[in-house]
C-alpha cells in the first residue's frame, strides 16, 4: 500500500520526549509571566477603584481648550523640527558608519569593530537619557532634544543600515569589481543604488519614530509639545492637556501616513 510505504520513510523520533519538552517549555513560559506579574506588582483591582479618578480628570478636561491653537503652533513646529534635525544628522552620521560596520564592504576589521562599538553605545543609551545629558551640557530648550535624537538615531540607523548593506546582493559588486572598477566606483555604482531605497525607507520610518520620541523628550525640558504638555499638567490645565493630546494624535497620525506614503514611493 502507498500509505504504508510512506510511513516507512517517516522519521520515527522519540515523540514522548518531544511532548515532555513541549510541556516543559510551556511551563517555563507561564513561570516567566507569573514572576513578571509579581515583580511589577500588578493589581487589576486598582484599575476599577481608579476609574472614578480617571473619569474625574476626563470630565475636567472637557471641552478641550481649542483656543490654545495659536500658541501651540510654535511648539508643534519645534517638535517637527526636532525630528527633522535628529533624523537628518542621524542619517548623515549613520551612513558612513554603517559602511564601516557592514562585514561585506568594511575596509578592515579595526574599522568594523570601531564602528560597531559606536553604534552599540549610541543605541544602548535611550534618547531620553541622552536628552538629560545634553540638557545638563547645553541647557534647556529644543537643541538638547535634537542632539539626543540625532545621537540615538546614529545607533539605530547605523545598525539597520549595516544590516541592509550586509544583506544586499553582492553579484553586481563582484561584476563591477571584475570590470576593473575601483573600490569607490564599485561603491557608488553598485552598492549605493542597490541599498538606497531600503535606506531611504528606514530613514523615513526613523523620522516617524523621532517625532514620537520628541514628544516625550519635552518632559525633560527639551522643548516641543511635550514640554507644553508637562507645563499644562503641572498647572492642572486639563482642557489644555486634552487639546495638546488631540494635536499630538493628529501630528503622529499625519507623520505616519506621510512616512508610509513616501516609503511606498521609494520601495
Amino acid at each position: 500500500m502507498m500509505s504504508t510505504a510512506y510511513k516507512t520513510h517517516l522519521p520515527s523520533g522519540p515523540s514522548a520526549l518531544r511532548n515532555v519538552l513541549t510541556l516543559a517549555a510551556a511551563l517555563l513560559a507561564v513561570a516567566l509571566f507569573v514572576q513578571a506579574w509579581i515583580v511589577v506588582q500588578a493589581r487589576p483591582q486598582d484599575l476599577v477603584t481608579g476609574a472614578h479618578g480617571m473619569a474625574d480628570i476626563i470630565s475636567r478636561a472637557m471641552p478641550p481648550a481649542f483656543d490654545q491653537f495659536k500658541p501651540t503652533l510654535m511648539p508643534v513646529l519645534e517638535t517637527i523640527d526636532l525630528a527633522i534635525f535628529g533624523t537628518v544628522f542621524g542619517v548623515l552620521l549613520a551612513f558612513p558608519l554603517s559602511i564601516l560596520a557592514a562585514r561585506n564592504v568594511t575596509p578592515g576589521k579595526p574599522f568594523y569593530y570601531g564602528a560597531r562599538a559606536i553604534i552599540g553605545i549610541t543605541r544602548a543609551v535611550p534618547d531620553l537619557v541622552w536628552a538629560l545629558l545634553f540638557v545638563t551640557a547645553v541647557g534647556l530648550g529644543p537643541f538638547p532634544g535634537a542632539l539626543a535624537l540625532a545621537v540615538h538615531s546614529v545607533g539605530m540607523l547605523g545598525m539597520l543600515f549595516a544590516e541592509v548593506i550586509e544583506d544586499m546582493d553582492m553579484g553586481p559588486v563582484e561584476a563591477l569589481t571584475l570590470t576593473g572598477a575601483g573600490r569607490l566606483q564599485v561603491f557608488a555604482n553598485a552598492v549605493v543604488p542597490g541599498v538606497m531605497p531600503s535606506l531611504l525607507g528606514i530613514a523615513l520610518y526613523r523620522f516617524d519614530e523621532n517625532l514620537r520620541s520628541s514628544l516625550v523628550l519635552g518632559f525633560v525640558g527639551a522643548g516641543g509639545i511635550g514640554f507644553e504638555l508637562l507645563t499644562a499638567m503641572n498647572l492642572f490645565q486639563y482642557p489644555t492637556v486634552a487639546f495638546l493630546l488631540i494635536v499630538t494624535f493628529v501630528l503622529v497620525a499625519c507623520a505616519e501616513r506621510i512616512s508610509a506614503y513616501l516609503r511606498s514611493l521609494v520601495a
Partner: protein
Amino acid sequence: MSATFGTTGAAAFDSNAARQPQASTRQVSRGVALASGVKLAVRDLTMRYPNGHVALQDMNLSVQAGELVVVLGSNGSGKSTFMKCVVGLNRPSAGSVEVAGRDLSSLSGKALREARLPLALISQHANLVRRRSVLANVCCGSLGRHRTLATAFGRMPRDEVAPALDHLAEVGLAQLAGQRAGTLSGGQAQRVAVARALAQNPQVLLADEPVASLDPEAADEVMRLLRRLASEDGLAVVCVLHQPDLALRYADRLLGLRRGHTILDRAATAVSNREIADLYMADA
C-alpha cells in the same frame, strides 16, 4: 547596426553556418584587436586548496582571437576553479595564466586590476544593478578605464554613452536603454550583461554557465550572441556550459574536464555525443 535576433529555434539553426566568421563593422568601431594570435594562454595550471584537494592538475589551454571554446565537465570537475584562476580570484598553486600576453597568476591589487582589463566575465546571473537603467549598467563596464572623481560619485563618463548604446544595439536591446534593469527578463538581462562586458573593450570573454538559468530559447539567443562576438568581433571566448547540445552547436573547440584533469581537447566537429556522454558518466 546590423545585430538582430530573429528565429531562435534550435532546429532552424545551422551549426556550421554559426561558426563561419563574417565581416563586421563593429570590429573597427570598437577598436577590438582582431589580429590573430593567442589571447588566452593557460600553461600547466595547477590549483591545490589548503586542505590538500587538487582541483586542477597541469591544465593547458590556448584560445585564439575569434575562437569559441566551451568547457564541459560534471560538478566538481574543476570548471569553476579554472574560471576563478583565469580572472585572478584564485591564485594558482603552479602554472601561469596569460591574458593578452600578460601573466595574471602572480599579480594582485592594482596590478591585477589593470592586467585584467582585457578580460571580461559573464556569470550565470546577469548581476545587473536592478534599480539603474540598462544604459547605466552597460556604461559601468567602462569604469576601469575612467578612474575619475566623477565616476567615484556615480556619474557615468559622457563619452561612453554612445559606445554603450552601440553595444546595446549589438545585443539587440538598444530600445530598452532607458528601462530599469530590474524589469528585464532573464534572457534580456544576460544580453545586457554581455553588452556591459563589451563596454570593457575586452579581448577575452569568459562566460561561466551564462545560460544556466535561461529557457531554451533565451539560452540559444545568448549562445548565438557569444558565437557572433567570436566570429565577427574577434573575441577569444571561453564558455563553461552544462548543455552539451549547445556546446556541440556553437563551439569551435571542446575542452572536457574530469577531476581536475583535461581529458578532452578537440574541435567540436570531431567530438561525438558518445564521448560527451562518457565525460559525464565517468564520475557517476
